[in-house]
């Protein structure tokens, strides 16, 4: 049975009133909570945030499939 890794992504959002792109999404993520958070990034676009979530999920799947 494969080792059971648990990933974690935290997306903290807020709105900067008056900005041309008011969304701020601070993302902290790890593919395995056995390690520390691997990266942090702030994004201002919904599609970018969606892409970050998708990319992280793909990484989690790949890690789960690794021997």
């Amino acid at each position, binding site marked *: 049975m494969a080792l059971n890794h*648990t990933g*974690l992504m935290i997306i903290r959002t*807020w709105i900067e009133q008056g*900005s041309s792109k008011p969304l*701020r999404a601070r993302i902290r993520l790890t593919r395995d909570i056995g390690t520390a958070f691997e990266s942090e990034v*702030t994004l201002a676009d919904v599609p970018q945030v969606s892409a970050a979530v998708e990319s992280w999920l793909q990484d989690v799947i790949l890690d789960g499939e690794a021997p």
Partner: protein
Amino acid sequence: MNPRNAVSDLEVSVLGSFSFLVHGEPRRDLPHGSQRLLAFLALRDRAVARTALAGTLWPEASEEHAHASLRSALSRLSDIDRSVVRITLQELALADGVFVDIRDARLLAHRILNPGTEDKGDLDDRAISTLSVDLLPDWYDDWAVAEAEEWRQLRLHALDALAERLTANGRYADACSAALAAVKAEPLRETAHAALIQIYLAEGNRAEALAAYEHYRELLSSELGLEPTSLIQALIEDIQ
């Protein structure tokens, strides 16, 4: 009475990292399950039902195994250490008189956010250092992450208010420290940068105000490709 000033034989700390002190001596060999139990109780101001406690701390275990894990976490505390927990048949809580840093810190933050409720000493360096620390930053349990985010929001707002209060009192250096702590916690949050610029302007330091604005503008541009809002631009319009 401020709990921080009370002499407490038992202390549970969750700010920065977990620690459990008995008579001032840290218990370094406490098993992780026992640490999680004490941290969870420290974050609650009231007794917690055993079932809720076991289910929250061991969410992926069966009810039977979660209760067994809870009993194990308790049994692995020494007799002296166990006095930190008030145990009944149905509930657990931290014993009365145990000092808990986050409870003290939350009270401090709320006093700062509610003018007129401050204690003497709330506006000192200790407040800035207390409000600069994250809660259990390396813990990933659902309950710990939620508590950490809640504390983060509270401390950011309290740092904003503290910077404003210190500026009004003419304590510009301390106000800068509070604003910089807020910037460090969330580097792309405009409110904190605006507070810093306003402090420099209040003390008549236009060069630093402009430098702070430029720093934020460059950061925002490099990270997100955006310009600062008109609200923060208006702060430095007259001195550019």
